[in-house]
């Protein structure tokens, strides 16, 4: 009999397939509704976590991973999001999905675990871009902040403001990230702009001046986390803008450097990935259950322990509750920021940078 078992089961599957295909087509959609199609980043839906959800709900989860914002946009916009039910996206990127009508509002009542989230994530209105017309479009899931890494030997007290990057005392000892978007946001924050992602035309000359003076204070500009560690070690660096946040903290500590990590009072730039539900979701209940499940302790802890990321239910070790985070938003003009930044980086003075 044991020999017959696989044949039997194959036969059974065949018959079942035929039955489904020919006799009860109506039930096909019922089965399909038990399937959840997830589009997300590696580390956000590990197989063991998915399995728990499948067992609990009796559904099947189909996870598709992407590794860039662009690929995610292509996959979702191509077929009007018909291929997916739920996806993870950062607050800045979320806006174009809302504008394209590819996402539907989330029913927060169907996600009881929101109650377990930290206050800064519970107050969805305080996070730009999540709420439109009183409707919530995404639930925060994980984030990373860009704080200031400082050399404990050169700082008696941790820096409290991003102004420290401009401090002439650290001239030639400040490491910065080679990227126009964030650097202009930093410049806007220093200028006291409450909307650092939207620099209006009057503010440009001042922002450029700020970045030129930042450049004059710089030891250098890095692109990759490993590069930043090498430069930090070689150059007697005092202060660094940590574009990669806790990842750099870990690398520097591993390299044996005595460093500290501080959040500026202006608010550390931070990206926040949230879960959103597509307009074409086939089982809204299941999609909400998925988001609710991921806010539970086990998946939330997995983010910290496995990915080195922060979750939204427990306070991060690098963050105090009073620390401000400046959630990233789409900037007014990516191309302009990067063109101006290239000129600044090349050493041009203000007049040349601002030339047409």
């Amino acid at each position: 009999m044991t020999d017959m078992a696989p044949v039997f089961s194959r036969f059974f599957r065949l018959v079942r397939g035929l039955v489904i295909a020919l006799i009860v087509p109506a039930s096909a959609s019922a089965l399909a509704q038990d399937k959840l199609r997830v589009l997300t980043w590696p580390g956000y839906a590990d197989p063991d976590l998915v399995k728990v959800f499948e067992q609990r709900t009796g559904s099947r989860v189909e996870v598709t991973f992407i590794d860039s914002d662009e690929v995610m946009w292509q996959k979702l916009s191509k077929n009007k999001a018909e291929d997916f039910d739920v996806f993870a996206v950062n607050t800045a990127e979320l806006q174009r999905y809302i504008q394209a009508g590819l996402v539907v509002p989330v029913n927060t009542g169907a996600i009881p675990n929101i109650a377990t989230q930290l206050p800064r994530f519970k107050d969805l209105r305080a996070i730009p871009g999540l709420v439109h017309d009183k409707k919530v479009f995404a639930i925060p899931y994980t984030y990373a902040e860009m704080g200031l890494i400082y050399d404990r030997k050169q700082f008696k007290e941790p820096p409290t403001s991003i102004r420290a990057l401009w401090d002439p005392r650290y001239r030639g000892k400040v490491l910065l990230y080679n990227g126009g978007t964030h650097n202009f946001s930093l410049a806007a924050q220093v200028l006291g702009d409450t909307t650092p992602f939207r620099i209006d035309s009057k503010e440009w000359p001042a922002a450029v001046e700020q970045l030129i003076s930042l450049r004059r204070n710089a030891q250098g500009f890095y692109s990759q986390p490993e590069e930043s560690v090498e430069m930090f070690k070689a150059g007697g660096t005092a202060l660094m803008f940590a574009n990669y946040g806790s990842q750099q903290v870990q690398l520097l500590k591993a390299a044996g450097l005595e460093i500290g990590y501080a959040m500026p009072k202006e608010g550390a730039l931070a990206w926040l990935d949230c879960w959103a539900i597509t307009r074409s979701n086939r089982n809204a209940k299941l999609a909400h259950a998925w988001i609710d499940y991921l806010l539970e302790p086990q998946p939330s802890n997995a983010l910290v322990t496995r990915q080195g990321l922060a979750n939204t239910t427990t306070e991060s070790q690098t963050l105090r509750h009073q620390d401000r985070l400046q959630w990233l938003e789409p900037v007014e003009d990516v191309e302009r920021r990067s063109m101006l930044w290239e000129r600044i980086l090349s050493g041009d003075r203000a007049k040349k940078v601002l030339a047409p």
Partner: protein
Amino acid sequence: MKLGIAVKLGLLLATVGVLASGVTGFYAYQASRSLLVASAKAELLTTTKVLTRRITLSREEVSRNLQLLAGHPAAASAALGRSLADEDQMGTLMEQVMLANPSYFQVRLISASDNGLERVRVDRAEDRMVRVRGDDLQEKGHFSYVSSTLKLAAGATFLSRLVINHERGAHAGLDQPSVILATPIQDPQGKTVGVVVINLDLNGVFASLRADLPKDYQLFLANRNGDYVVHPDPSQAFGFDKGRRVFVQDEFEATAALMEGRATSVVTEVQTGRYANAPVVAAFVGRVIKISSDEDRLIVGLAQPLALVLEQADRLGGVILQLVIGLGVASVLLAAIVARAVTRPINSMSTAVQRFANGHQVAKLAIDRQDEIGVLARSFDTMQNEIRQQLAALHENRLELEHLARHDALTGLPNRRAFQERLDHAVARAQRSKQRFALLFIDVDNFKTINDRWGHDGGDAVLKIVALRLNATTRKADAVARMGGDEFVVLLDNPAHREDITAIAEKLLESVRSPILHNGQELQVGFSIGISQFPDDGRTAAELMARADHAMYDAKAAGRNGFRFSSIKGTPSSPTPL
């Protein structure tokens, strides 16, 4: 198919010969191939080291140009921005340096003050020199080629990382693979007031280096992390600048030893990845940069298609193959000859045996040979002689037996059986040829008396003498036989007349008339002879015998020692009285 010993032996010898030459050839090829590869590798490594040395020399030449510029009396005041005339003087000098060195993208004089503002700058643009002035001059203090060089002692050279130059406004050098060398400028008081910087065109430098190499050589250069900066496939160089790093240690695993400082040079063969179809031999040299630099090590490599290295080995392999084929053919021929030489005597011997068996005369054997074949031939010869002798003896015995079967042991005359055959023969012949013959039936008279008186010895002696006398009296063509006891017969072949028969009968009677000596005694015997004739008295042997027998009894009845013709007509011849 049954293979003869010659074929088997030939095949065995040929196989051994071909195998021996093949294996020798193969190992000779292997050995020479590895020798050639080893020498090619050594040569490649030497070339790579020479190349590395040349790179250092090129760098040193740039350093000399930097010294020349930094040491110029106008350099310090130009760096301080105090004299336009000095700046122009430096500019002219820098243009000349640029003209003399086509691989220089830029030569600059940068101030230590004013955030590293460029004071004098000459760029290469397409095919001319551009003196960059005014607002187009940039602040470079945040680049390590300025900040690090400012910290150097006079005369020292700084080497930047090997990068794609993204500094805007760099004319021909923009977005090109570059390396920057710089040296500090000191004022007469020894204070560092600026730096002189030369941007080198990496592609230009390596194009001129490559020009001196054999055409099929591929040139590689990687930085301390193994990122390619020069690669035969330009898309593989400066991967880190495109967000997709390409490492030399991924393509040439052996270079990991250079990266970790475990070796200063490695030679490797690679036949995977992009070299799967065209395997290469590659030599890499790890060069620690001695001068102040953001790079601390460069990896210089040269690769050569393995096929080219092996071309020589393949030529040699061709020669070896020809030799092997030649030797193989020779060994096949030799095997055939040897097989023939060995099997020919065996074959001739087997022919001899066959002929001997068939009763033919024995063929000549190679008994003179001194080898095993000779021994075999001699043994066979001896055996053959023995068999022949035994056969001869056997033949003799047979003849004797045959004689015994057909002759009377006592008298040596043909016996009844033999005579019967002779008689049948005579009848058949006579019938065919219409000839005549006569049959004489002879009985010794009073033989019983002789026997009784003189014993069987006496009887036997008489019979012997009688037989001799009968033989002596008859012609050769006639047949005499003993029919048993004291009875003899004589067949007279083709007698001409009855008188002839009579004469013979009388002669026979006459022949026994003389006494017979036995143990000193004279014995006297007589004959009674009955005669029948073919065809007068019968046409069959039995008839003739019966008639002759009958006639003999008639003769006995008539008083013995006489003869009588069988006569149907009843006219008996008169008996000869004693």
